[in-house]
């Protein structure tokens, strides 16, 4: 394996739903250890891109490479074992399962029980509110708590690449800030992160690099600080 190959390499990725082309041949890379964001208007194709990477949509085999291996179109359950985890849009917690059971499902692929318990402790350090609600069903949690659970659950698989789809959706500004602090902390601990976010300012402030998507194509990509200074980005996404 080429030491400088990115952890995730997307080339010419195309996604269509029936006749509708949602993603029209995009290129995107995430190097190991990076925190990268993908921003864009509603319907730009961000969720489709993440779903394709996570194995939820049929796409060409060579259009996605993870650790240099072509993984396009491989089923999601297999990709989890390779070290990929997606926190889906809308959180996707199992609402009738308890917090503990949700976290146990996050560790479904693992058998190292002692290590799982250690990771569980870490998750509860990160999200003390979850610890107080371990036996509560996930459906009764607040939106912010559900998002924390969704992130904690994804971390329980010990991913090398964590994909997050709009972790701020529907949450109060303070909770959003807290969630992003935690994502940054997770990234600092060595997990590579690719996050889709509507809140472009916050995402760009936290990330190393960013991609801007419009109608299924990547129109811009640069370091986050350069994007924050970019006139086009400031007008379209930062409301200036």
């Amino acid at each position, binding site marked *: 394996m080429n030491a400088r190959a990115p952890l995730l390499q997307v080339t010419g990725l195309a996604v269509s739903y029936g006749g509708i082309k949602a993603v029209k041949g995009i290129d995107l890379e995430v190097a190991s250890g990076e925190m990268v964001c993908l921003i864009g208007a509603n319907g730009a194709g961000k969720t489709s891109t993440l779903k394709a990477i996570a194995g939820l949509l049929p796409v060409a085999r060579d259009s996605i490479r993870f650790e240099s291996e072509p993984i396009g179109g491989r089923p999601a359950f297999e990709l*989890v074992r390779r070290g990929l985890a997606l926190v889906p849009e809308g959180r996707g917690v199992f609402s009738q399962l308890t917090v503990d059971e949700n976290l146990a499902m996050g560790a*479904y692929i693992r058998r190292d029980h002692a290590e799982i318990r250690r990771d569980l402790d870490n998750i509860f350090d990160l999200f003390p509110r979850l610890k107080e609600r371990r036996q509560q069903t996930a459906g009764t949690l607040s939106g912010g708590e559900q998002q924390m659970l969704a992130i904690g659950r994804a971390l329980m698989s010990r991913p090398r690449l964590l994909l997050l789809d709009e972790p701020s959706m529907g949450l109060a500004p303070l909770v959003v800030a807290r969630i992003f602090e935690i994502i940054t902390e997770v990234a600092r601990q060595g997990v590579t992160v690719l996050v889709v976010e509507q809140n472009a300012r916050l995402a760009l402030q936290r990330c190393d690099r960013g991609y801007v998507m419009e109608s299924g194509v990547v129109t811009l990509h640069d370091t986050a600080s350069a994007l924050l200074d970019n006139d086009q980005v400031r007008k379209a996404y930062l409301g200036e």
Partner: protein
Amino acid sequence: MDTFIQQIINGLTLGAVYAMVALGYTMVYGIIQLINFAHGEVVMIGAMVAFSVIGALLGLDSGLPPALIVLLGAAAAIPVCMAVAYAMERVAYRPLRGAPRLAPLITAIGVSIILQQLGMMIWSRNPLAFPQILENRIFHLGGATVSTVQLAIWLVAVSMMGALTLMIHRTRLGIAMRATSQNPQVAGLMGIDVNRVIAATFIIGAALAAIAGVMVGTYYGIAHYTMGSLLGLKAFCAAVLGGIGNLPGAMLGGLILGVVEALGAGYIGDFTGNWFGSNYQDVFAFIVLILVLVFRPSGLLGERVGDRT
């Protein structure tokens, strides 16, 4: 009063069988929203395989104790039914995953017909006398009676249902089954191979069906290649009564249906001036089904439809 108690006892016996079969319907429905109409045929195959094995062992003059012979019959029926259920899922239902819901439903009816015809070819079209070799001691409770076979049916049913409940709530596979039934796509994101979980669901339901088949065979002393149809349909009614997709609901629905049916059979003559006899007992399951569908479509313990999303 004695008739009343007696019919409750009989009803609970029958109900335990319905509950075991209803669990198979409800588990499969819970996970892929398919009403597996072929499930009743799995019960039939369970009874028939046990019939053959028990008959063969008796023919050998093995001198084994009767209880052990029946147990061996069940022990043979269970893996056969599991294999049949796995095969039907694999061959008939899995290719239709994602197809409009009517397609697998009609396929299920087709599978049911095929299995029934297979049963006829293997075990003949005649009713078979299921060897009633268990010593059937009768205990008197006031004016009513309970037999050892009834007690055995209760004991087995209760322990099976207890084990299933534990399994669903305590084991990795059980939690994965519940997760998959709530959101298969997210289950995949957890690394759960949804197809395997679905196959496991069919297989577990089939094991319960096999045991139920041995129970009815032993209880009524008769087995026939069509026995699965009506039994399956009634168990389906029980599952709907309890709230399809809901496990405790299937158990409760089975017991209630058994009791309603037994009481109905016991009293229908008195109430209709003997216009209708107890041979009309099969009607009650469907009356219950219609009443549930009219007044409480989500069943006794079922969630409201909106809760699923």
